[in-house]
């Protein structure tokens, strides 16, 4: 009994201490810790008070291909159609719907935000992204972003690794296991590869992608393998991203936000050319699942999956990184959808200036340079695109000229056309 009394006194003293400690910590160290471990909280704090429309995205919003000189993001292009609205974005590489949900949870009730645009990156449903090694960092951020926990408790849980903190090796093991064990049931029954690993190995051994001289084009082979690893997946109700999107829908209803989901464009064209119809099939299946799931809901679900063609993508491996004209096309589609909620704020905007400015900027930088020098700058761009380059090689063979000459002609045509 005596011992119990001593223990209770100490627990009470500890509880009191922890309350005081939480107050001290929140007013001293918490800000520094969030900047170090949860910078998204800082982004929310900065933007939530001066935003009407919040655009959530991964790197697709801001990535600038080297061929572009403009750094305008999709959300900024969108803002050109709605100059009176404050459209801000929170974007960071590898962000996905789970992180978006955590961000939305932390928006204060008093915030002027009325509309949320969520970019749905289908690649984020694949195992490589679900088990990527940045998940440990995002998981730590999500812990610190828990809205209902005292800051001191969150900090303590962080140091006890009370989040999905796995090493790079463990993550690798997770997605390799997924690729080895998850079977692609929806593909046609005579399709020879039932798992991503089988498919990937088959492509790697196929020697299907060749250079003009008949040697194996390893770059193209690797790219094809990456397309399979990125896009060969199937989703269902239990998929973590699907659950995250469900939570976003529920939260938006609760907070009375206007909600727009938009599926980001993927380079279906290239996937079809390099792999075959199976990848487009799987992507469309995922898209259809999502559209069907949210069709009854009172929000917009924009399908931009095939909005862009291959020329809009910049890729060393399959990504949703678009050039300026690609971003503008997406922004235009979003602008149409946003009219539903902000029709009075909509202003027609002629993006021709943006497009011509973009190339003009390119040309401005080149105007004092001879044609030959301009061509020599563009040739590496063509070579960098394996599909384009292979087409050049084919043309060279057909025209019975050297590849260098064909490249020159291709680049010259491009400059004169623009």
């Amino acid at each position, binding site marked *: 009994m005596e011992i119990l009394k001593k*223990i209770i006194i100490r627990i009470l003293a500890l509880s009191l201490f922890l309350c005081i*400690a939480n107050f001290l*910590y929140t007013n001293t160290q918490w800000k520094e810790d969030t900047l170090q471990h949860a910078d998204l909280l800082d982004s929310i704090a900065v933007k939530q008070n001066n935003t009407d429309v919040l655009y959530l995205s991964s790197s697709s919003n801001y990535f600038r291909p080297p061929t572009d000189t403009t750094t305008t993001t999709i959300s900024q292009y969108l803002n050109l159609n709605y100059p009176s609205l404050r459209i801000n974005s929170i974007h960071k590489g590898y962000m996905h719907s789970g992180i978006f949900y955590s961000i939305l949870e932390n928006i204060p009730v008093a915030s002027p935000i009325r509309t949320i645009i969520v970019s749905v990156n289908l690649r984020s449903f694949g195992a490589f992204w679900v088990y990527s090694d940045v998940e440990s960092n995002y998981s730590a951020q999500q812990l610190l972003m828990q809205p209902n926990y005292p800051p001191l408790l969150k900090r*303590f*849980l*962080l*140091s*006890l*690794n009370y989040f999905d903190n796995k090493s790079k090796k463990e993550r690798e093991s997770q997605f390799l296991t997924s690729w080895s064990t998850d079977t692609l049931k929806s593909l046609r029954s005579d399709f020879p590869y039932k798992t991503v690993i089988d498919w990937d190995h088959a492509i790697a051994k196929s020697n299907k992608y060749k250079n003009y001289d008949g040697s194996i084009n390893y770059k193209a082979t690797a790219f094809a393998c990456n397309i399979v690893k990125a896009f060969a997946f199937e989703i269902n109700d239990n998929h973590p991203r699907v659950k995250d999107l469900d939570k976003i829908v529920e939260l938006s209803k609760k907070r009375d936000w206007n909600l727009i989901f938009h599926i980001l464009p993927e380079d279906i064209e290239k996937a079809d050319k390099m792999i075959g119809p199976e990848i487009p099939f799987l992507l469309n299946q995922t898209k259809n699942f999502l559209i069907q799931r949210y069709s009854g809901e009172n929000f917009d679900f924009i399908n931009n999956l095939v909005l862009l063609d291959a020329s809009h993508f910049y890729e060393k491996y399959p990504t949703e990184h678009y050039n300026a004209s690609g971003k503008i096309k997406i922004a235009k589609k979003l602008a149409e959808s946003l009219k539903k909620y902000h029709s009075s704020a909509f202003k027609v905007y002629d993006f021709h200036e943006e497009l011509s400015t973009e190339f003009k900027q390119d040309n401005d930088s080149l105007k004092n340079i001879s044609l030959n020098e301009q061509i020599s700058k563009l040739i590496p761009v063509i070579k960098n695109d394996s599909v384009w380059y292979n087409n050049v090689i084919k043309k060279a063979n057909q025209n019975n000229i050297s590849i260098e000459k064909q490249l020159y002609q291709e680049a010259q045509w491009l400059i004169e056309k623009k």
Partner: protein
Amino acid sequence: MLFNSVHFLLFLPIVVILYYLINPKYRWVFLLIASYYFYMSWKAEYALIIIGSTIIDYWAGLRMDRAISQKRKRKYLFLSLASNLGVLFFFKYFNFFNDSIQTILDQFSIFYNKPELNVLLPVGISFYTFQTLSYSIEVYSGKQKAEKHFGIFALYVSFFPQLVAGPIERFARLGRQFKVKQHLKWNNIANGTRLIIYGLFIKMVIADNIALYVDQIYLKPETFSSWSIFQGVFLYSFQIYADFYGYSIIAIGSARLLGIDLMDNFRTPYLSKNIGEFWKRWHISLSTWFRDYLFIPLGGSRVKVSRLYLNIFIVFTVSGLWHGANWTFVIWGALHGLFYMIQNISAKLLGITQNETWPVLNFLKIIFNFVLVTIAWIFFRSESLDKALLILKSLFTNFNISDTFHIPFTILFLLIGFIISDILLYNKRFDSWISLKNIYIRWGIYFILIYSIIALAGVNNNPFIYFQF
């Protein structure tokens, strides 16, 4: 289940509460279940290895006790040795052994079709195999009667506070405590809690914060200046100490909550004046194990000087190999052996005795010994010999490189605090030291430690370093 995890912080109080509520007759059952639950939270199937080891050593112990001749006894001892060391070799040294053979044969252009084993190293295997080996050897030598109660023996092998990273306990000391009815005593609860708080502070605040900086240096030493590398190397000495010391204190504290007394594993080792003293203060349970079961059987110190030094060198090298399946650990152990011999020989030549009381000389000895130990740690920490040599080289050649590496003031402040506390605790344990302070100082220290653990702990996936052994 790591000690610095939510899982353990929930597990431990539940175990302690239920332990004292349960009929003392069945407490060993409860502790055994709790210990296996603790271990299986890592990888459940690996509990089979402990069960196998337990059964073999229990049976071998009983057979040795009943054996009429020494020859028969030796047979059962051999069985225990073979099974424990065999398991250790299989999981820990198989690939290392084959890699080494391949390296040697490559020198002679002989092809070797190296078999590859892709198995996860069971956590704590080096510790519990050595613990059970000590039991078998003691029974063989007649120092210990074989334990007839299988449950008590199984608990001795798997007792969760010290299962995965020691202290490596002898059966005579630990096993008998399981047979004693432990009463709920305030001292045990208070001291156990104090030790756990202090251990968590050392591990989470000191070791884990230092780790962030050490990792940078060891990842790409060629990009850092000599001064930065020096800081990284210096910091690692304290990282590994704080990490392992912290773990040991938490283990001792957790056992103390249950009324079980585990041996001290550290006694301010960096205040040692020579390598010999260092190993009487660092990982004491391991050094005494090697002393009793390797050094003494090799002849101990009752041999010629040359044989003595050979024995010492062997013991240190094997100790290095025990730590890990990599030549870096072997070199680390061998360096300790070498330093020991050099210090011993030079002390004799210079007429310096162990009990020298001149403070300046003692201080210099401590600093010099710390430098030697720190140099050896470079090999311990490096992933490869090449990396270790690169760090050593870069320490003396990267003066022209400039970098932005710096240790924040808070970390330096904490480190200095830790060094001071270590000096204050010279030959004392934290729980006994703090219990003598007045209530305001005691509670002031508790609150500082608790606040630091909660608000200042390092954030990274840092398991206890010795878990990898």
